[in-house]
């Protein structure tokens, strides 16, 4: 019997400080047993449990993309017991990852559609995974227009900066980068909150357009009306939720909203689905 609690052993291959205040770091892991990498086949939008023996396990969105082989990446905000321990670990250390867990963005449904990606703060991780997946030469022609609205508190808090500015230069993706505020006189992108930038820049919806939204609850809350104004119907708004989790496999009963378990039935839901559930997220 497969043991769904058993993590794959992994080694930290690289640690990169991701934001200027050092509160976020991106960890690159390689599998100790190469055959485990195949078993860990994931889709963009899924998450995993990072597992530090003797310390604990935490759910973290997968930041690398299925088209990137040989490693997996996670970007982690230092906030409590496990995340602080992880931030103090070093290259070469051993730990575990368990997954992939949860569902993913509905890639089949998104084919031949316009996709608008909206992210705020460090919830951008699984959105990075999605963008890299869609921009992959083998996949790009499967999607029509791709728009990205991504906001952070300040320029120094933007994740994956180099990639962002690379994407900015491409003509097969429209980037709308924003910060809440900045005193940098050379800042050439947007300032303002994500919902406003969405309202001003995201494409108006036709039936071939879907929006993927991932961010803190407050951003999600105010982005919905902006999208509605632009004509998006609840089934065209796809969101990734975060609830407190432990098992990640639908058994511990912790993460439910109504009858849905966010870890297993989610974390990805359409607004149409969420409208049928109590607002417990």
């Amino acid at each position, binding site marked *: *019997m*497969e*043991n*769904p*609690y*058993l*993590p794959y*052993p992994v080694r930290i291959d690289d640690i990169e400080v991701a934001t200027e205040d050092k509160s976020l770091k991106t960890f690159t892991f390689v599998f*100790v047993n190469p055959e485990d990498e195949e078993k860990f086949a994931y889709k963009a939008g899924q998450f995993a449990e990072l*597992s*530090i*023996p*003797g*310390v*604990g*396990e935490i759910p973290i969105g997968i930041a690398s993309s299925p088209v990137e082989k040989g490693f997996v990446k996670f970007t982690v905000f230092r*906030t*409590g017991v496990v*995340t602080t321990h992880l931030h103090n670990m070093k290259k070469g*250390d*051993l*730990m*575990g990852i368990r997954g992939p867990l949860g569902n993913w963005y509905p890639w089949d449904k998104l084919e031949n559609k316009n996709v608008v990606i909206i992210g705020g703060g460090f919830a951008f991780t699984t959105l990075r995974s999605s963008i890299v997946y869609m921009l992959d030469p083998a996949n790009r022609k499967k999607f029509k227009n791709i728009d990205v609205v991504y906001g952070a508190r300040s320029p120094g808090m933007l994740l994956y900066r180099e990639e962002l500015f690379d994407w900015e230069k491409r003509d097969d993706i429209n980037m709308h980068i924003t910060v809440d505020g900045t005193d940098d006189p050379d800042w050439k992108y947007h300032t303002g909150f994500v919902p406003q930038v969405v309202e001003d820049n995201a494409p108006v919806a036709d039936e071939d357009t879907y929006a993927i939204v991932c961010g*803190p*609850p407050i951003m999600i809350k105010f982005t919905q009306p902006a999208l509605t104004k632009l004509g998006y119907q609840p089934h065209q708004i796809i969101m990734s939720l*975060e*609830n*407190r989790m*432990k*098992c990640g*496999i*639908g*058994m*511990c*009963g*912790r*993460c*439910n*909203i*109504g*009858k849905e378990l966010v870890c*297993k039935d989610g974390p990805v839901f359409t607004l149409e689905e969420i409208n*049928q*559930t*109590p607002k*417990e*997220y």
Partner: protein
Amino acid sequence: MNFITIDKKDWAPGVDQSRKTYRVYGPVEDKNGCQIKPLAPDMQPKMDAPVTVMSAKSVLFPQTEKILTATLDESKEDHHVMKPVETDDMPRVVLGIRPYDAKAVHLVKLNFDNPDYKDPYWCAAYDATTFVGLGVTRPGPCDFSTAVGSGPFSEEGLDVLMADMDDKYLAKILTEKGEKWAAACGFATAADPKESQVLFDVLKKEAEKQIQADVNTDKLAQKTILDLYDAPFWDEVAFSCINCGTCTYVCPTCWCFDIQDETRHNTAVRFRNWDTCMSSLFTHHASGHNPRGTKVQRVRQRFMHKLKYFLDKYDQGIMCVGCGRCVASCPVNIDIREVCNRMNDYETTK
């Protein structure tokens, strides 16, 4: 289906004989009341015990259970690699379990053994366990099992159902596991199947008559989750709750758990422990955000999970077998029977 009779003077020797093959669990009386526990070699189950304070759920789902370990000693090649703790496959038998508790095992199975994931610890324990039930001839005042699809002589989830006939037990062998257990005890006196079934039917009828539960669940399925969630009575239901969690710990169908790590010397151990939706930490995010930060939200979650979410998710009735333990144990007398009726009768005015 076959019936056997077990003379009560053969019972204890039979139980002792079965210990060669089985670890034996049964009701024992101690300072905390009556509990289902593993029996020491010199102990016999207290078969005539009343309702046990705690259900038999810990036989398959211990309150604290080691699930993984790893060495942290960096001189060892496999340091920091987690390994499963051996599952315990030794056959075990639970004697004197009440039929509603056996039915509860079946409801809990939906969670731990599903098409996507199997919980290896729960499943191994389940496979190894034989449930020998004792029909309830004198249901207690809180028993409403008949109202929720179980009952004092319900057979669901049992391998053997016994009826107490004063100087003997009449036993109905329901499964192969049950047959094996009877053989291991040396219980082999066949009883007439027709007569025995008639006797069971009579006992069942008499026991069911004593349960005067007025609990209705027939209209729960038609209501929407949001209507019940937004119903006006939750503040009132939750008013006196002190969030002690007792109702969830005594419940045979509550299965929520936590996972925690501990380190001792150079060994890391990952445990799982019973947890409860009554605790405010249960859903507390690391960011400080808590979707169920207030008591009324948590009380509502417990009842909505048992009486609506479970029903909608599995279409197997409600997640309650009517044992009445939560009613009897709640220090402030919150009564699931009343809440269930309130939910069932609720008509939205929208």
